[in-house]
């Protein structure tokens, strides 16, 4: 069955990006579909972070086409990305320890009544968002983030990203710093995000995580797309081969 039966939420075609003489991304093709987790894998320096920053508007692309729900768009800065509904959860989470969960989730986009903060509305929305993600690990949304565990912090960062009716959520190594139990919790949450209809892009080094939650795997190799395949159609070792050599006898660069 052909994968592209409907328009992907986000599709990138022929993306080029260089920093001075360094050609980081060459003719990259990538797509993410609503309701799916697309894993973005690749060795260090393959261009994963740069690609994500291009999508997030931190580094505008040099050339190439970005389509959002089928329509070509340009993403010049993070605000434009946010306006489209693209949110990135960075590896270092970017949470303020001294603020509570509500404060962090609404940081920079506080709800107000006149000049005064509307704490009640923000708290309600934060609770709704957390319960829509079936998060039960957080007792009170008024807890300061400093008192949270690593997994809870990740949960807050992810909830912050989906609070704004976002359509595409990009997670940069969400389980890198977590223990076994918390990794499982976060992966469950990642799965639920996709199940609510979001296009989820998961950057990960951990093949177990990738195979546990992703629907598709996009592999980058030295700045080019090695392949984008369905997770169910590849084996662990084939993906490792794509990451390390850019190709696999059985897969090459043909798309699924």
């Amino acid at each position: 069955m052909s994968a592209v039966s409907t328009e992907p939420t986000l599709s990138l075609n022929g993306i080029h990006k260089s920093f001075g003489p360094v050609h980081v991304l060459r003719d990259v093709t990538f797509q993410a579909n609503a309701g799916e987790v697309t894993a973005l894998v690749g060795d260090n320096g393959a261009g994963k972070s740069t690609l994500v920053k291009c999508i997030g508007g931190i580094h505008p692309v040099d050339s190439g086409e970005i389509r959002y729900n089928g329509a070509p768009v340009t993403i010049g800065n993070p605000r434009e990305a946010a306006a489209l509904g693209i949110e990135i959860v960075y590896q270092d989470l970017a949470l303020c320890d001294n603020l509570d969960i509500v404060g962090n989730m609404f940081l920079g986009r506080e709800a107000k009544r006149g000049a005064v903060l509307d704490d009640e509305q923000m708290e309600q929305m934060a609770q709704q968002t957390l319960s829509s993600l079936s998060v039960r690990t957080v007792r009170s949304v008024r807890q300061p983030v400093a008192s949270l565990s690593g997994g809870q912090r990740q949960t807050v960062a992810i909830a912050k990203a989906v609070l704004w009716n976002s359509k595409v959520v990009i997670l940069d190594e969400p389980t890198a710093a977590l223990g076994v139990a918390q990794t499982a919790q976060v992966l469950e949450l990642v799965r639920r995000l996709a199940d609510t209809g979001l296009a989820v892009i998961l950057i990960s080094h951990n093949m177990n995580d990738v195979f546990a939650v992703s629907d598709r795997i996009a592999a980058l190799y030295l700045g080019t797309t090695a392949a984008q395949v369905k997770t169910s159609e590849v084996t662990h070792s084939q993906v490792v081969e794509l990451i390390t050599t850019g190709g696999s006898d059985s897969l090459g660069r043909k798309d699924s």
Partner: protein
Amino acid sequence: MGTLTTASASDDRTEAGPPSSPLADYLRDYWARVRSGDIGSLPAVAGLVVLSAIFEILKPDLFFTKANVANLFTQGAGVTLIAMGLVFVLIIGEIDLSAGFTAGLCASVMTLLMTKQPGFMLPHGQSWLIGVPAALVTGMAVGALIGWIVSKIAIPSFVVTLAAYLAFQGVILMLLGEGNIVRISDPNILRLENTSLDPTVGWILYLLVVVAYAGVRILKVRRRTRSGLSSEPALLTGVRVGALAVLLGGLVFMLNMERSLNPARSLKGVPVIVPVIGALLVIWSFVLNRTAYGRHLYAVGGNREAARRAGIDVNKVRISAFVICSLMAAVGGIILASRANSVDSNTGGSDILLKSVGAAVIGGASLFGGRGRALDAVLGGAVIAIIDNGMGLLGLSAGTKSVFTGIVLLAAAGVDALSRRRGAAGT
């Protein structure tokens, strides 16, 4: 990132357990905050109680007397107000060592504009309606300059404000001339630190404050209940309002008693400076707690990168904190001048700055940024004033006082550092 992995998975299941009463929930949340390093005003309040008890025991006939309690307010006012501004720069993780001499500079500008004496660099003989705004504007300009240098040129605030400390000291000397003392004769300025409210006015203000506080708390509970959110138990609201009513009531009662030793000249009522501090406390608490700007200040102090990514103009926030700090230093300077009835080259100098920083930190503001309230300045200012006053009554030398104040400041900074380490290592 290693510290995160060490957190045990059991922490993620705190929601399990029997349902509990709202009061128990509240206390548990409070305890969680304390454990995470947010000990708030506990040390300052404990310090106030302990110090008051010690001085009361050592000098029972002098310390807790009507006259002396009134003195505490007028003595501590300047430092408290400067500390209130310092809280803002402490929240964003900076320091302003020039705040003391900024106070002196602004007070000098005001006094020279208002003096009847010609011969200074500024036009003289102006009304306080010119002098006071000029002092405030001078403060804001100073703050904007310091903030701009710190945030745009990226010189550490410690160095910038140390340079400003020296420079402003020089500017004051140039403005006033060596060894000059310029007297203040304007009654409006002198009134700030030298008169008291009519006892009736004191009680009316007291009622307004208690009713307003109760109203704000009840409205908040109502709004939260209407939004379907858990709110603090009614008992706690009652305790809060009751405690304020009793403490403030006792104070007003005490201050409204005759404290003049001279039967010919009556002296009673709440010192004018008390409602002035109260009003500024309310204004700055509102800004910090209830506005997006206040939240951005805390965010910049907590994690500057996170604030930047959230779309907050970090530089603008940082500059504004220095502007508020220097503005409050100007207010503090006016109060210092009013108390001394004059300005000289040492107004805002000597240990004023260190006491102000000490007041903010003793009150609970963190030297590491991210934490601090306007109330901290008032509590810490009270501790400093009590030490100063009590040790004076004991007849101890200025040297002993300085050593003791230094130890208290070090203890407060130690509590701050330890609670912070605990917050980083705990849960």
